């Protein structure tokens, strides 16, 4: 327990202390399997925080708790000033409009065209838009990811990298303030993975979003991270910039970087 929340480097430079997500003392277990055991972190406005952890360490569980898809056993989560554990369904829906989520498996609706996929989040949240505006938004989002020509195709006709881009376009369509990426490069070849990582940085610069990127792909971490939190044994084992963590002498941290 001595290592809990040990800061390898002091992070909060003066001037950027405006957290958009605060997670405090989060616990989540599935029967005997204690996945999160007191996890803490803050996401500052405008930064990209990478949460680094091995497969099965509970990274997806953590961000699913943040977006309200899972209920933690204990702890508090504050997103954009809302305590999400006490939010009503309606308020949660409103909040979700401001928080985008890119699923590990893309989660494109495979019975719908790309256009219908992108329109889906708008049918509820922006139902006041007229057809022209909806179309404009769809095309704008697809252009952001360089795939405007796929608008009338089905998801199954696209390659893995293109599906990831379309999924990102669907996330962008509501112009979220925060984007959560669940292993954006897993399952892609290294070159496509690097392209997606570059795209994440591009989107961050264009829309000034705050992001959490979950990953164990060091290339992606290096490209995207402003700051890294290491998820190990259910706690935030260490935090720091890429440079400080690379230089770390701790064996558990070293294994990520070799």
């Amino acid at each position, binding site marked *: 327990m001595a290592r809990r929340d040990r800061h390898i480097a002091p992070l909060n430079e003066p001037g950027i202390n405006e957290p958009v997500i605060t997670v405090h003392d989060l616990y989540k277990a599935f029967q005997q399997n204690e996945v999160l055991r007191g996890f803490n972190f803050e996401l500052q406005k405008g930064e990209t925080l990478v949460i680094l952890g091995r497969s099965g360490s509970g990274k997806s569980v953590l961000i699913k708790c943040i*977006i309200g898809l899972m209920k933690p056993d204990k702890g508090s989560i504050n997103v954009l000033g809302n305590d999400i554990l006490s939010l009503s369904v309606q308020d949660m829906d409103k909040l979700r409009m401001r928080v985008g989520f890119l699923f590990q498996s893309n989660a494109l609706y495979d019975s719908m065209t790309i256009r219908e996929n992108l329109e889906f989040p708008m049918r509820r949240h922006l139902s006041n838009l007229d057809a022209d505006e909806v179309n404009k938004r769809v095309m704008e989002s697809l252009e952001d990811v360089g795939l405007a020509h796929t608008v009338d195709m089905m998801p199954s006709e696209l390659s893995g990298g293109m599906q990831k881009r379309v999924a990102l376009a669907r996330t962008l369509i509501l112009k979220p303030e925060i984007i959560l990426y669940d292993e954006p490069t897993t399952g892609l070849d290294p070159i496509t993975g690097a392209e997606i990582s570059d795209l994440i940085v591009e989107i961050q610069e264009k829309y000034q979003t705050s992001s959490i990127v979950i990953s164990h792909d060091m290339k992606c971490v290096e490209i995207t991270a402003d700051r890294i939190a290491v998820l190990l044994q259910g706690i935030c084992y260490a935090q720091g910039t890429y440079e400080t963590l690379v230089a770390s002498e701790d064996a558990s941290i070293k294994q990520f970087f070799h």
Partner: protein
Amino acid sequence: MKLSKTTTEVFNEVGELTYFTARFFREIFSPRFEWREFFRQCYVIGYKSLPLIGLTGFIMGLVLTIQVRPTLIEYGVEARIPAMMGLSFVREIGPVLSALIFAGKIGSSMGAELGSMRVTEQIDSMEVSGTNPYKFLVVTRVLAATIMLPVLSSLSDVIGIYGSYVAFNIRGAMTLRLFISEVFNYLKFSDIFPAHIKCYFFGFAVGIIGCYKGYFTRLGTAGVGRAANSAVVVSSVLIFILDLLVVQITDLIGIG
């Protein structure tokens, strides 16, 4: 008292299914019904299962008529074939046969479709984008199944009776018109009504089991196959149990 693991699992599942069903009745009346998805499901369900239900109904009418004929001739009541086949189809064969085909075709595809949507996080994705996935996926499918099965079953009755007419006319001659008027001479409201009502229950059972199995699929892709499979098994057994119950109830209150 210590219950074995499987017994506990069965009770758990029955509890979960009850809760899932209760949620259907709660959400169907809350605002923003997904009309478009509902009509799409009705169309898809009808279009997918009609050929199979028609074909099996036709063959069943044909084969049964050929097989009962010698016995009926022995008793000299060959002329009662239309009445007998009409009654059997409307009261039992039409509803149960279509329900079983429906379970195999529609129940399994609901289990597989929702199951793969679950494991590829599409259901979570709907929730995140502000659409209630239970209303969008489950309510529309279950309602469409409930409404479509009685329609399909009636068509199966008609096609089955026509099959019977075709078989009857292999040896013997009767006009279609006479055959049909013979069928209707012996059909009473109390034959048609309970049989029609039970089709709604069969359709609901197939829909809710298929959706339940798919909606709670676990363990990745392997789970999808299991969801589809157990959707068919459970709903087929449930169809027979419901059939038994309906017979008892209609007997008890004196219709049928």
